């Protein structure tokens, strides 16, 4: 039972990060019908910028409390990732908006490689240690441990998702986004500046990815230039699981996927009699993806996405 609660907590932590990244995929997919393959690398850029800010703080204003440092790192990373994601949209997607589907997918892959290479040139090839900012004293819940960083992560993720919901449901911009997602051309005819909405969507997705990136670093204490690939892929799986194009789906999908992964990693050894171990953790997301695509391609919350090749 203790293992179960522990893995459930781990899953929630992991899942909330997936959810944050999945939101970026799903929102872009909603308005453009396009998978932003470089989104995982936006997370990586966020983590790297966050680390750089922490190092600068350490050098120039030492002695700040950990929470303040983390907050500054996140606040500093957000505008950079926004800028990166807006540039990606501008360079790689805007001109190809009416091109066949293969074209933007290919530029997206190219952008992803370029971002990783630039990051490698700036921050180097080897994994960078991410400083431990909050007290490492764990909090005990029913025999399971959760670190203060992870609690902060859950709080931040909840805050970010809550404000996103408010933004999408309650503001003018949110309404415009939903209209563009519904039908871009008609939305344009109704006087909505489609391009502005699309840029805003990319910026919001990037901000969420920056939060996830910095917290990812704080949680795992090590970041590299390739760190974005797997979370990006899995977050995409989460978005599909929840029903791509639907923001509530992305949140639920992210959490569910995180929990499946954590429980799976915790129990796979027992289930297979020690034949497969926890290092197969990364496989679950793809198994889930394939199952969802075969059994219920619309995901948990999504509308029907049929073959629209």
């Amino acid at each position: 039972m203790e293992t179960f609660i522990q893995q459930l907590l781990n899953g929630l932590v992991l899942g909330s990060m997936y959810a944050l990244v999945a939101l970026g995929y799903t929102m872009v997919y909603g308005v453009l019908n396009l998978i932003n393959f470089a989104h995982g690398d936006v997370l990586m850029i966020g983590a790297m910028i966050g680390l750089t800010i922490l190092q600068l703080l350490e050098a120039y204003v030492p002695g700040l409390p950990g929470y303040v440092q983390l907050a500054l790192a996140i606040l500093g990373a957000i505008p950079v990732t926004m800028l990166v994601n807006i540039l990606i949209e501008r360079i790689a997607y805007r001109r190809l908006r009416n091109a066949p589907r293969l074209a933007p997918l290919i530029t997206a892959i190219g952008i992803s490689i370029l971002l990783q290479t630039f990051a490698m040139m700036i921050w180097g090839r080897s994994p960078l240690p991410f400083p431990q900012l909050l007290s490492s004293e764990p909090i005990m819940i029913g025999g399971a441990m959760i670190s203060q960083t992870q609690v902060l992560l859950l709080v931040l993720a909840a805050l970010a998702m809550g404000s996103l919901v408010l933004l999408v449901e309650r503001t003018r911009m949110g309404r415009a986004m939903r209209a563009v997602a519904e039908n871009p051309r008609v939305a344009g005819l109704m006087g909505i500046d489609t391009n502005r909405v699309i840029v805003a969507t990319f910026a919001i997705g990037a901000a969420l990815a920056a939060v996830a990136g910095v917290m990812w670093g704080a949680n795992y204490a090590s970041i590299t230039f390739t760190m974005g690939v797997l979370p990006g892929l899995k977050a995409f799986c989460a978005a599909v699981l929840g029903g791509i194009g639907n923001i509530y789906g992305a949140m639920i999908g992210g959490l569910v996927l995180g929990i499946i992964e954590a429980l799976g990693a915790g129990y796979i050894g027992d289930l297979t009699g020690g034949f497969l171990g926890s290092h197969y953790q990364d496989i679950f997301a793809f198994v889930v993806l394939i199952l969802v695509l075969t059994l219920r391609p619309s995901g948990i919350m999504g509308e029907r996405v049929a073959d629209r090749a």
Partner: protein
Amino acid sequence: MALLTFDTQHKPRQAYTSMAIVLVLLLIFPFFAAQFGNSWVRIIDIALLYIMLALGLNIVVGFAGLLDLGYIAFFAVGAYLVGLFSSPQFAALLESVIYYSPAIGEALVAFFGPEIQQNGIHLSLWAIVPLAALSAALCGALLGAPTLKLRGDYLAIVTLGFGEIIRIFMNNLNDPINFTNGPQGINMIDPIRIFGVSLAGEAGSNATVHIGSYAMPSVNAYYFLFLALVIASIFITGRLQHSRLGRAWVAIREDEIAAKAMGINTRNVKLLAFAMGASFGGVAGAMFGAFQGFVSPESFSLTESIAVLAMVVLGGIGHIPGVVLGGVLLAALPEVLRHVVDPAQQALFGKVIIEAEVLRQLLYGLALVLIMLVRPAGLWPSPNKEERPNAALARDDEEASTT
């Protein structure tokens, strides 16, 4: 390219002449390159394998318009197949089975005999190549089956995931039963033997291959083998392109609904594209394993999948000479740059600022982005407009507005 044309349909005489010229140049090339050292021929050998991969991927991406981002996984399947069935690895596998479960182990040993328990399985090239093609094709079909009725984007993600899964398995399938020997990889893979002649040279011959009284370096022997395979691949994919099946692929690429309406069984045809593309990857992988004598998970990263994709895209999606050009440029250029750019930077700045490896990555990324933006049909697009992917043609804005 004005002098050379490969358009056999419209200018057959010119096309066959240029093919003959290229062939002669290719045949004398290794003897010329060997003057500068065997390492250059080796680079070309690897480039030929990449070209073969690019030709296989071109079936999937170019002809059928399905984006496969895990193509290197099929390459890995071929390479590990050779690793398992053409090296002492199978003995290690049996040993680990005996350790894990003595009963099954004994049964397997009784089945395979003491010889295999001692030395592993050593299949010959003639068995390995069809086996590699088949098992890669099977993997391709299995992978495609759940996704092909969905949109292309999903296929891209699933293949990407598949590439990662294969890598996880390669890294971890050494315990409790040792299939892949984990991150260390499989060593001592048999060199390729053709009619009893080992292409790596006999022991103690200093990597020289003797055919009758004639001797040549091992890398040259491999060069000719790979060249033959590439030519065969070009021939096969070329014939496929103009077959009924090839036309069905293009029809699906251009408009799947219309293709379906014309009576094409789109799912089966797409599966075939996937399986056939994968089989080229499998064969190339088998060759790679035997050529290197060693396989490890590192050779099959996502970057390699993207490298192959970049070759197809750079050269010209769906146009075979273009794909070959893309393969030559992206496989050989980084190596050439390594010999030119690093010394140049040393001379200019006193240190290497951008390493050749980094430059290679930049090239791949830039190739993918710039080509799609500026010249979507590639550097060397097909002379026939209808063979080009519609990326090159007028863009229908219908697709963007239908949500």
